[in-house]
């Protein structure tokens, strides 16, 4: 029974598998991946569970405050008691935040920047990694690998000033320029992830396709890219999170304030002292919600993707 539970969903299996298995003393085969989680015998450690729950509060409280503040009336949001429940509920802050931040525009710009960043990152780095790994015996490809990887040591602040100048000269001081630079800063890490993964794909897989007359491009597109599935997810998730949440690069590169991304437009609530807290928090909530929702829906892929990425690096 517990073995059946382990397969389909993500949240339930670890707990059911462990509690279900321990009284019998036998480890169910299906819960192998929870290996490390089983190694202490005995019953549930409630004091530790409570401690962890308290630790989880440090994550929940700021999020709770954001939601509650956004639903208060302007006068209640100014009373300093962030933890209180809204009384009465007043969602009007959202409407005002929507207008003040020009939410549809900022959201659209953020989506555009993310899409371009993720597409560029996936394409450039998967193509480059594939050809690097397959031509590893050539010096040019080995050196290119080292060259691309060296960027890991080049943080944005170091190149910020010349890049601001460059993008302005090229007419790229806009969301497209931001996306290109985001992709550039993802490149090293993505190439590292892809090449580690590609080394495990045997070249024989391609040989048969080549004998059947497939071109290199077809082989890449039809065979390699699908095989890269899990890594595409990892690289894509990293690129998406970095791009969506970035403030530093976007705020410095984009010259037109109307074309700023969602995180950048939140600064209007810092300078404008006339704004009510409920409006500011409604806006913060709308800026945070997309990644949190994506994460909660796709958390299995996000967690395994980030773990894989981090361990591979």
């Amino acid at each position: 029974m517990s073995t059946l539970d382990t397969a389909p969903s993500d949240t339930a299996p670890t707990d059911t598998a462990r509690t279900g298995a321990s009284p019998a003393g036998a480890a169910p085969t299906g819960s192998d991946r929870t290996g490390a989680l089983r190694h202490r015998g005995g019953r549930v450690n409630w004091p530790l569970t409570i401690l962890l729950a308290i630790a989880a509060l440090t994550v929940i409280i700021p999020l709770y405050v954001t939601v509650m503040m956004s639903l208060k009336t302007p006068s209640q949001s100014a009373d300093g008691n962030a933890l209180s429940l809204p009384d009465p509920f007043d969602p009007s802050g959202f409407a005002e935040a929507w207008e003040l931040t020009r939410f549809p525009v900022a959201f659209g710009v953020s989506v555009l920047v993310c899409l371009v960043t993720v597409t560029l990152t996936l394409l450039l780095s998967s193509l480059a990694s594939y050809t690097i790994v397959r031509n590893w015996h050539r010096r040019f490809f080995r050196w290119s690998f080292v060259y691309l990887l060296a960027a890991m040591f080049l943080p944005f602040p170091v190149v910020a000033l010349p890049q601001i100048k460059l993008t302005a000269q090229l007419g790229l001081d806009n969301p497209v320029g931001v996306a290109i630079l985001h992709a550039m800063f993802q490149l090293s890490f993505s190439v590292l992830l892809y090449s580690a993964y590609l080394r495990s794909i045997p070249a024989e897989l391609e040989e048969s396709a080549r004998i059947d007359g497939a071109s290199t491009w077809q082989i890449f597109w039809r065979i390699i890219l699908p095989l890269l599935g899990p890594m595409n997810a990892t690289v894509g998730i990293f690129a998406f999170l970095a791009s969506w949440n970035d403030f530093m690069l976007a705020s410095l590169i984009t010259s037109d304030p109307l074309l700023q991304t969602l995180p950048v437009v939140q600064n209007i609530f810092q300078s404008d002292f006339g704004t009510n807290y409920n409006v500011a928090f409604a806006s913060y909530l709308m800026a945070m919600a997309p990644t949190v929702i994506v994460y909660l829906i796709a958390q299995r892929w996000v967690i395994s993707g980030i773990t894989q990425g981090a361990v591979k690096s």
Partner: protein
Amino acid sequence: MTSTDISAPSPERTPPTTRSDDSPARGRRTGGRARRSRGPRTDLIHYLFLVPALLAFTGFVVVPAAQGIFYSFTDFVGFGEWKMLGLANYRTLFSDPSILSSYSFTLAFAVVTVILTQTIALALAIALTKRVRFVSGLRTIFVIPMVVSGIVVAYVFNYLFSNTIPALATALGIGPLEESILGNPDLAWLSIVIVTSWQTVPGALLIYTAGLTSIPDELYEASSLDGASAWKQLRAITLPLISGFVLINTILGVKGYLGAYDVIVGLTGGGPGTSTRSVAMSIFSGFTGGEYAYQMANATVFFVITVLISVVQLLVVRGRNLTLA
């Protein structure tokens, strides 16, 4: 030229003229295509796969970096004429109190944050391997901070630090916290440490979880039979076996913390005064303050320091012959 190459990352759409005069030259230089029995066409396309990434990276990152480093030896203000200054900018830099204080702040902040973050993340990761309930739910919650935008989180915490905590402290009679720590030059840095840790614990936690999962259960079972205490197991089994993960976390962490910007902007804006001004913030001031060349000298020094720290850390990894996963 670079920009046209960027806009067409797929080799299919790239005009063959720009490529064909480029790639064969490289092919010759690297010894041609002798060692693999593939036709010339296949070879060319392999270069076409790599060249977009190389060109984009060179044009948008390497060339600007080189330009910037060059200008750090001039009196360039960002536009107009300039002349060579030699090392003058660097000499000024090393005696500039505001620059030195931004370095000492950034380095101290990075050290404190990395220690705090690693300790919390490791403790949480180990706790999650024990027999506790709701492991998946707790892990889901612990990871949330890493998916939200740093600047927005900083704004939320800004409110908590300047309104909620002082109000609570007043109600409970905790004197020192009645004033917002954001306005206190001696304590404001703590707020940045707290929020940065809040945001970066999840990443470290996931890496530690992966590390702990790779330790065989048998080690713990055997040592339990021998009567080893939990503390002894931690010191004798867990810590040695995940030391590689500690190092990788430290490297990733320090690199990120040295470039701290978003969270500081959202919390203190570098203040009060310049007490929490990071190196990144002072570099960016060169954009508006007419200090382009001077701040590029700063950026160059910052680059060298970042590389040195990373290299030292990597040497430690190599020296101890650690392998991961």
